[in-house]
């Protein structure tokens, strides 16, 4: 466990991979600060579209959507997702959206 600190008095608990522990502390400023740790300097409209979709899906279903669903419903192809979030939808976009760490099989 660790603490993530950033400008503007941001100070939240995160796990080893930098995912926030308490989804309720999420806000847009925190998202922007987390994005910087994943190689995203400026969050533009497309970034927010992905992040908001992930948040809404998570709030509705309690899990992260499958990648294919994410691309289909946002209309953003996977290649573009990686351009927006270079570390990918699971590590990058989900972290910025404040979702708990997605579990996956290695």
């Amino acid at each position, binding site marked *: 466990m660790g603490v993530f600190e950033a400008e503007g008095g941001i100070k939240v608990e995160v796990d*080893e*991979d930098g*995912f926030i522990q308490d989804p309720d502390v999420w806000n847009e400023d925190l998202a922007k600060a987390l994005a910087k740790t994943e*190689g995203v300097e400026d969050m533009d409209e497309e970034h927010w579209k992905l992040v908001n979709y992930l948040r809404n899906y998570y709030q509705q279903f309690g899990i992260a959507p*499958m*990648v*294919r669903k994410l*691309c289909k419903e946002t209309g953003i192809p*996977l*290649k573009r997702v*990686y351009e927006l979030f*270079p*570390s*990918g*939808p*699971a*590590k990058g976009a989900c972290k910025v959206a404040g979702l708990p*760490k*997605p*579990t*996956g*099989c*290695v």
Partner: protein
Amino acid sequence: MPKEYKTPKLDDLEKGPWPSFVKEIKQAAKNNEMSNDLLAVLERSYDERIGHWKHGGIVGVMGYGGGVIGRYIDIPDEYPNISHFHTMRINQPAGWFYTSEALRSICDIWEKHGSGLTNMHGSTGDIVLLGTTTDELEPTFQDLAHVGFDLGGSGSDVRTPSCCVGEARCEWACYDTMGVCYETTMRYQDELHRPAFPYKWKFKFAGCPNDCVAAKARADISVVGTWRDAIKVDDAEVATYYDNGMDIFNDVVLNCPARCMKFDHESKKLEINNADCRRCMHCINAMPKALRPGDDKGATILIGAKAPIIEGALLSSVLIPFLKMEDEEEREAWYDIMEEIQDIWCEEGKNRERIGEFIQRVGMANFLEAVGVEPIPEMVAYPRDNPYIFFEQDEEEE
């Protein structure tokens, strides 16, 4: 000098004439704190009977969603050197052929950035580099790229395709496994590096039914070399085996699963009913000088094997009985079917459902109909014994 730990249980594993991973880790531990702590944690796990590695880290390199498996220890305060111990999978060359220079460059990079410990090769087929920290991932990736290596697959993606040595060294290879494996790897770069499937997808290429990559027991798609004409028999060599004391009747004829052979002791001739042959390779393996695969070579495509992780183990089923592998058009048609299957699986498959489980759930008949492959008798394990399932109501009435 790294801290010295007492490891009596591990020391026990060095005894005997066999190679020992303990010996190797100790060797690495002389100059590497990570390997040294690794020994201590392993000894402790044997004592406590508890594993200390946490599951499910998400780490990676920029632009890729797979290739790195995050590992953290649950007692980082006690073993700070291995608080991170991530695994990197590196795409192996087809058939695992290296120059010693290439091997040295991998080892040098890994000693610089990680524990120095490798697993050549993991059961996936990849070069497995064991143990590094999050900060070292990107520099390692860059250094590897400079010497021509790329990350392999991990997570819900196309896993690094792997193949047997094939025509490079083996006389039984019925197609160029290394060539097709390389072609498939290049073709699936997107799917390999950017996971978007319900679960993992493994391609494995074996040159003959001996299946030295164990494809049909674990790969989602197995491409297994075979032939469709007759086994080639050299009568003089059969006679020589007999004259040298081989019990051809008991060791070859009676071990044939199809019972398709006869041996005549008088004429020393072996007769094969090729129509009944199941291409199991047993007779060829037993008498390699006398018998050879036929000339009309290609591959059988099988689908749906998996090892037991979430559900139980599955063996493959035949999807395409015979494909001429050197024919580019036939290969293209095969790739088209693969894409069709992946589309349907991605649309309808559940999270973490392998293609074999998916087929079990929806039924083979429905699956084949959906992907547009005609069911034929050659797909069935024992077509002569088993009426199987492919009879539609109207066909029966006819």
